């Protein structure tokens, strides 16, 4: 259900051909394949009846408005559950109560407050966010978990209920070190912080190679042996590297790097990763978006799919994030055009054509 003019995501880059347009946003396409679009102006008189008709044909309602706005728009749980016993997932910035309830969030502010930004980056500089809009998309994935849980309860027990999902809480509970860091503080009083520099330990961190970079974990236990097997240099086979004191010695790291750097720099990412896989070394290349798109192995596995769009033609799109062999993810359609399904959906919800005509005429739907 989109507002008149369309969801904000329709205006978010990247755009097909670099040209903005209401159907051209890659962000919108990615988030909305397999969906239909109904345009509804919740602020107009008459919208209530449309909400009621839509809820009646639904198994789940998802809202993402600030708590006060949801109430004002007639999307509060009391109102929705009066229509029908139904699960309602309410996604909010900070939950439905507490001092921050009505505050705004962006991806960056969300990760700053909720996530483990504090320890990301180096000590002498500012803390860092993740790439893209990772923190927000993580919250979306958690929303899917919560929604499916509510649908299970609905089908198993015949109960609707409100599910309150706060973006702030999702990040506070992130298994990407945040819940651990908080528990560690409670246990020990230690605050997880930014290190003075990256890449501590023997063969630890990101190394450059001939055409890019690799993430390397080699210092712990059996991983050093596999790493040494990969590099295959007699110097690294000397027993001195196995002493625990050496592991934490910065001078020893420099000695090891004197062997590791030339080896890496004379090889491509693909060559290093192939050698790493043979030795089962804990090493992997840093891929760009282009690498993710072009990688022949991922292509062969079906990581990407092709979307056929009525107006825009064909374009590639990230495909299934998981593979289920009996009920596979499949692309049923591109992201909808604005209001593409308004009339059909309302008709399917049992509204008379005359009623629908009047809703269009008065601007309640579009």
């Amino acid at each position: 259900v989109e507002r008149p003019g369309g969801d904000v995501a329709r205006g978010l880059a990247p755009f097909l051909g670099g040209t903005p347009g209401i159907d051209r946003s890659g962000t919108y396409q990615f988030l909305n394949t397999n969906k239909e679009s109904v345009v509804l102006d919740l602020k107009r008189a008459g919208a209530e009846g449309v909400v009621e008709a839509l809820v009646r044909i639904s198994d789940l309602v998802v809202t993402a408005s600030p708590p006060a706005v949801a109430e004002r728009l007639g999307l509060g749980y009391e109102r929705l559950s009066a229509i029908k016993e139904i699960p309602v997932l309410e996604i909010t910035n900070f939950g439905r109560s507490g001092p921050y309830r009505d505050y705004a969030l962006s991806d960056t502010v969300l990760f700053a407050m909720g996530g483990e930004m504090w320890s990301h980056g180096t000590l002498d500089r500012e803390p860092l966010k993740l790439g893209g809009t990772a923190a927000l998309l993580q919250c979306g994935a958690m929303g899917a978990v919560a929604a499916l849980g509510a649908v299970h309860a609905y089908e198993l027990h015949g109960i609707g209920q409100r599910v309150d999902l706060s973006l702030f809480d999702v990040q506070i509970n992130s298994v990407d070190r945040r819940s651990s860091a908080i528990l560690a503080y409670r246990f020990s009083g230690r605050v997880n912080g930014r290190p003075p520099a990256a890449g501590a330990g023997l063969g630890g961190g990101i190394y450059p190679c001939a055409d890019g970079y690799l993430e390397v974990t080699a210092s712990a236990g059996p991983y050093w042996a596999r790493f040494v097997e990969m590099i295959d240099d007699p110097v690294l086979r000397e027993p001195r590297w196995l002493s625990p004191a050496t592991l934490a010695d910065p001078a020893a790291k420099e000695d090891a790097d004197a062997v590791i750097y030339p080896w890496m720099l004379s090889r491509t990412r693909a060559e290093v990763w192939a050698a790493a896989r043979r030795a089962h070394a804990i090493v992997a290349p840093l891929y760009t978006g282009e690498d993710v798109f072009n990688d022949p192995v991922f292509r062969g596995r079906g990581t990407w799919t092709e979307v056929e769009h009525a107006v825009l033609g064909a374009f590639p799109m990230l495909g299934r994030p998981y593979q289920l062999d009996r009920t596979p993810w499949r692309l049923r359609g591109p992201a909808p055009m604005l209001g593409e399904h308004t009339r059909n959906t309302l008709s399917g919800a049992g509204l008379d054509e005359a009623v629908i005509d009047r809703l269009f005429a008065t601007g309640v739907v579009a």
Partner: protein
Amino acid sequence: MNEYLPLQGVRICDFSIVWAGQSATMYLADMGAECIKVENAFIFNPMTRAAAPRLTPQVSRVLPAWVGGHPDSDPGPRPWNNSPAFIHVLRNKKSFTVDSRRPEGLAIVKQLLAVSDITVENLPLGTLDKLGLSDEAIRSARPDIIIMHMPAFGRTGEYTEGRGYGAHMDAVGGSTILRGYADSSPFTNVPVYAGDFFAGMHGAVAALAALRHRRRTGEGQTIEVTQAEASAHMFPQSAIDAAWNGRIHGSIGNRSIEGFVPNGVFPCAGENRWIAISCRTDGEWRALVRFLGAPAWAETGDLATAAGRALQEEMIEERLAGWMASREERELFVALQAAGVTAGPVMSAKDAAEDPHLAASGAWQRLPATADYPETDFGNPPYRFTKSDVGIRTAPCRFGEHNDYVYREVLGLGDEEVERLSAAGHIADTYAPEILGG
């Protein structure tokens, strides 16, 4: 409330390790599935219950706080029952031990599979096959079971032998190259494990879908969640811009890929205090300018539009950094939000633990002391169901805590068999001497 658990009656035979697998089954356990961890006194899976089976206070202090911050910085004799890095993903789960490498142990695992609805694993590829637990073998124990594999780089294709932790899957998924300071090379990046988080949630979503299909049709299936592929879905803008337009994204520090200006993290008064600010609309920019007292620099030129501000981004960032530097970040946070600007402090783990909003909104649950840690507040799941009790119903499972329950009640073994399996080391509540060392 218990009768309304979404996954009531579902049992998981859980082989998962580290964060991605163990968090996937945690979400399912939160929803009411009975999650039985299959553990082995003769194998210490790295980064699954603790960094190592023996950890001195000295070593734990050298480790980063998230993994080394055991109670009072002393891991004690059982670091696997009090690791801050891992025990929170063990909430609502049960633990039983068996050495599945021996025939009688394998038979026990198959008995458990026979009464399980789903099994989950993210072990190095081929580990279960080597144990004699191929998909076919699992299905012969339980024909309608759901089998979920969560490999690093796929169960098919050339990368099957690739090994990695979260940081390595983030690398291949396109995550690592996008973060870091805009003016430094990626090799100055410190590791994060965003991919574990994302793959764990995607595993839970896939499992919930398969469980729904099974409840409706009785049919099980096989699921593969390749963690590097799931990670790629965390950065669709970068992947799609490359696919559509041939543009390659790199790190832009704290700036916004959406073109919001300003969008950054600025120093505040005091040591290592910071505030994050985003102006996502021109209206938010106007609110920020009013908040700053409408200084001349902010009202000159074409700063009224995002495009105009983009041309002056560095200047705006320098001005903001200068303005914020003498002010306290929590006061700024409240004042900026009240003024209509999206802003918030960068919160350390300590700040989060002491945050008034989290305390007031039910984010924590106090769990009683055990032999391995004192009474402590743990994080509640981030979703609150009004009818189903999806909170922390049982504390993180200790190693081998539920052996009696699993062997006797679930598998129906008698005293004699239990005694025999205990004597053979299958049933244990600590790791074997060869794991623990001298």
